[in-house]
């Protein structure tokens, strides 16, 4: 079912075609160059007998009058076993295979199958003949990496169908028939591949639940002060050089989650290269396997065509929804949503739409909201819980959070981890600003306690500002100690050394233990002879706590470090408590 058309306008990556018959909004079309190369594109506006299409490739060489083949299918992705560990571009072409077939450069007009057709999967049936199933109910499962990958009834199925046939246990390829379903005399053959349009949310479940379980990132400042929950959403805005991507990378390595989808959207190719060259060698402490075995990389870096950048975040989130459907806890890291918004802006400009703020289209906010709303924790049809957590970075122009993308994102996320220049200049990593950030979720440590500790940071900051004016001499010793306590909390708890093997990831029990100890220091009523003595004491404590942070959990080294801390706290100045 396809329609043909003819190109009438070419302008940047936007092409307008005149067509006969009917076309569907967001359907895929192929523009045919005179040399035979077919360029994939998507219909984004229809006016009368003309449709505007965004082309996912360089449009160089297209002519007026060139043929356009307009399909009836919406821009879709292939879903099934074999996605994990892959590196795809924004249109789900596997990049390493592309390099083998096409060479070093991403020549336009080449499209490859996302799933390996030759690979054999060990299939075990779950449903039996005679069972009644509806869309997304399990028919069988295969083992993909360490996960049970459930093969489900087609997501597009209407109503209740009877299982007429289901394949016996054994090895099958993705295109092999593994079941036949029947309803009112009509039958459908089911294999392991499903297709789903990327712009439609994929969610077939009993109900959507309130996120209640924290997603442990092993970053103290996040888990304790600004927690994120399984099925929640968060954003990381920050100026360049503040460490957004590093924070995303740390999260992708250490987060306690089944599957991480990294969507490198319009960012540097080098950063993706780092991930895809290192992940096959880094070990995931939870499973003992390499990190790549729990990762999918979708990469549409800044020099790849803009329209495909726009679709890449949808490709990524659709894969995320699919694995939630399979029953996993998935984390989607989108870096960066600003580049995606800019892609929207470019297309909107070409469409000559009336611009909103900073020339972004008026529908920017609702697009952002729809994107984040696709995350969430759900109860699947078989009663299991599964989640999709979405974390996006934002790259505001000039580091100014008042711009439309940051503001549009803040309205819809559950946690805001704002990065600041000041902290990154001072080498305080992760550079999350503890006074600007917020989270609507609650973490493992009780909220009142966290709030109590957090108050030190605010008071410390105002005392510090006052000190800038009146000098240390003009500050009372009590205020000075509060300031030192806030610096102490910052130094030993908020900051974390991602280069240190132990400190890079701080698990929950360790965080709880450390937080208790840090609170004891914050509570402690010191009596100091003068400010120099106070400074000295906190200097020592900071050093000792840092040593503790570097000591592996429950080792002698950790116990020694703890003993030293106790010694300092029971010393002369401190003993007055």
């Amino acid at each position, binding site marked *: 079912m396809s329609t043909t058309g003819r190109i*009438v*306008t*070419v*302008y940047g990556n936007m092409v*307008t075609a005149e067509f006969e018959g009917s076309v569907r909004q967001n359907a895929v079309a192929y523009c045919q160059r*005179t040399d035979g190369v077919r360029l994939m594109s998507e219909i984004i506006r229809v006016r009368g007998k003309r449709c505007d299409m965004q082309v996912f*490739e*360089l*449009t*160089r*060489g*297209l*002519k*007026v*009058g060139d043929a356009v083949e307009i399909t009836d299918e919406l821009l879709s992705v292939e879903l099934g076993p074999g996605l994990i560990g892959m*590196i795809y571009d924004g249109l789900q072409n596997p*990049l390493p295979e*592309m*390099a083998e077939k*096409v*060479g*070093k*450069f*991403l*020549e*336009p007009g080449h499209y490859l199958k996302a799933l390996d057709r030759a690979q054999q999967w060990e299939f075990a049936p779950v449903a039996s003949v005679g069972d009644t199933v509806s869309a997304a109910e399990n028919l069988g499962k295969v083992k993909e990496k360490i996960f049970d990958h459930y093969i489900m009834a087609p997501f597009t199925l209407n109503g209740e169908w009877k299982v007429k046939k289901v394949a016996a246990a054994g090895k099958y390829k993705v295109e092999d028939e593994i079941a036949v379903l029947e309803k009112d005399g009509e039958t459908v053959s089911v294999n392991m591949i499903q297709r789903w349009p990327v712009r439609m949310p994929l969610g077939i479940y009993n109900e959507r639940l309130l996120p209640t379980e924290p997603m442990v990132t092993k970053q103290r400042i996040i888990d304790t002060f600004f927690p994120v929950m399984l099925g929640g959403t968060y954003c990381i805005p920050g*100026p*360049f*050089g503040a460490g957004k991507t590093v924070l995303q990378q740390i999260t992708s390595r250490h987060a306690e989650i089944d599957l991480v989808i990294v969507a490198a959207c*319009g960012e*540097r*190719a*080098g950063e*993706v*290269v*780092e991930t*895809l*060259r290192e992940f096959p060698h880094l070990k995931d402490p939870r499973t003992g396997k390499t990190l790549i075995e729990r990762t999918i990389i979708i*990469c549409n*870096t*800044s*020099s*790849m065509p*803009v329209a495909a950048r726009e679709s890449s975040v949808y490709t990524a989130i659709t894969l995320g929804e699919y694995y939630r459907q399979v029953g996993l806890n998935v984390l989607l890291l989108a870096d960066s949503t600003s*580049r995606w918004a*800019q*892609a929207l*802006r*470019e297309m909107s*400009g070409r469409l000559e739409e009336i*611009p909103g703020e*900073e*020339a*972004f289209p008026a529908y920017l906010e609702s697009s952002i909201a729809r994107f984040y709303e696709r995350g969430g924790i759900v109860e699947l049809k078989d009663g299991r819980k599964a989640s999709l957590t979405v974390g996006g970075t934002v*790259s505001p*122009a*000039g580091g*100014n959070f008042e711009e439309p993308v940051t503001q549009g994102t803040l309205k819809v996320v559950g946690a805001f981890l704002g990065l600041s220049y000041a902290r990154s*200049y001072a080498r305080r990593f992760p550079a999350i600003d503890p006074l600007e950030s917020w989270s609507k979720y609650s973490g493992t440590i009780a909220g009142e306690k966290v709030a109590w500790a957090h108050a030190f940071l605010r008071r410390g900051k105002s005392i510090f500002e006052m000190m800038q004016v009146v*000098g240390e001499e003009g500050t009372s010793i009590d205020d000075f100690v509060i300031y030192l306590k806030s610096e102490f909390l910052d130094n030993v708890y908020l900051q974390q050394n991602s280069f240190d093997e132990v400190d890079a990831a701080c698990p929950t029990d360790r965080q709880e233990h450390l937080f208790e100890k840090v609170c004891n220091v914050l509570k402690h009523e010191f009596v100091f002879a003068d400010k120099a003595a106070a400074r000295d004491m906190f200097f020592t404590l900071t050093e000792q706590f840092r040593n503790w942070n570097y000591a592996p959990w429950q080792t002698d080294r950790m116990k020694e470090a703890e003993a030293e801390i106790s010694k300092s706290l029971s010393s002369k100045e401190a003993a007055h408590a």
Partner: protein
Amino acid sequence: MRKYYTQIDNIAGNVATLKASGVAYEELAVVEGSWGKSLAQVIRISDDNVSLQVFAGTRGVSTGDKVSFLGSSMRFSFSDDLFGRVFSGGGEPRDGRSELTDNLIEVGGPSVNPAVRLMPHRMIPTNIPMIDVFNTLVEGQKLPIFSIPGEPYNELLARIALQAEADVIIFGGMGLKYDEYLFFKNQLEEGGAMARTIMFVHTASDPVVECLQTPDIALTVAERFAVQGKRVLVLLTDMTNFANALKEISITMEQIPSNRGYPGDLYSQLASRYEKAVVFEEGGSITLMAVTTMPGDDVTHPVPDNTGYITEGQFYLKNGVIDPFGSLSRLKQQVNAKTRDDHRAIMDGCIQLYSTCRETREKRAMGFEMSDWDQKLLKYGDSFEKQIMSFSANVNLFDALQQCWEILAAHFEPRETGIRASLCDQFWPKQQ
């Protein structure tokens, strides 16, 4: 059989529109009139209306001028004959020698598949301590020099070009003053590097459209050499002029500006050039250094701001020195663990002390009393600036590290430096 069109309908800015058929997007055309002849590129086709961006500008173009289409997009001759040559931004010879027509390659092709890229892993020595020690330049890196107009950024670029051990140096000048162009030419000739250099120079008096072509031709040539396994160093100056040319064209094309008049796709446009920096598995590479002048020293200006999001760090040129605080080489971690054991420790230690020294200077300026420690810091800061930060310092990495140790030893006790004791034991200069 070339077909000629003799009816131009609209002329605005550098864009001429005429009716033509069978024309491909981004195809080249020639506009010929009594004023001369210029190349032009198709930048929009709408039904039978074709918009041409005229490289030489539209001054003097008549509606009756002859237009013919060349049947291909922008191409440039690629061979070893390019070495030592100077071209204009549009690819015409600028050195009075003959035009090259062999082995034409398409300018501005698709980007490199990320899956075939390697992590940059080789240091590029520059003999500038502020770079080698503190923000090491890495082969395959893309790094801008942020600077206010008037700083010696071109001198810095020329020095790096002469010091770096590159097989090929490609220079792209955009909106250069004529004497700046001559400065580079002389520097490269005097340094004996001209034989491995190819220059593409667009001067401020040349047509603005050619400014847009300059980086594309330069980078296309660079990419070809890199694919051959050569280590290529590309120097671009000044990318702000390039961005301004983009702005000019997009306004003429009635595009809606996004920020301070710049087009909404400024980020993508800059990125598609910067992202040409690459390391291939077979050994070829492109290292890209580009000057970005910041109007009014404002780093939040759209050009430096977008650049910062694209590049792997930046060198911040301020008051004639590479500022140690704003500057950053994001890739230095890839190489500075392998140079010498004390490299990272010196890098952090010296900067931390210098940063404290600056705080002390502020305190002094506000009239606070100076302690002994403060005095030490002040003296250290002076020697550090004079010997290490100064633009005239010209020593290799190991000598520079040694100098840093000597400066530290002249002013501090080992424990005051915050450098690990084991390293101090090994490297601390012995008393004479």
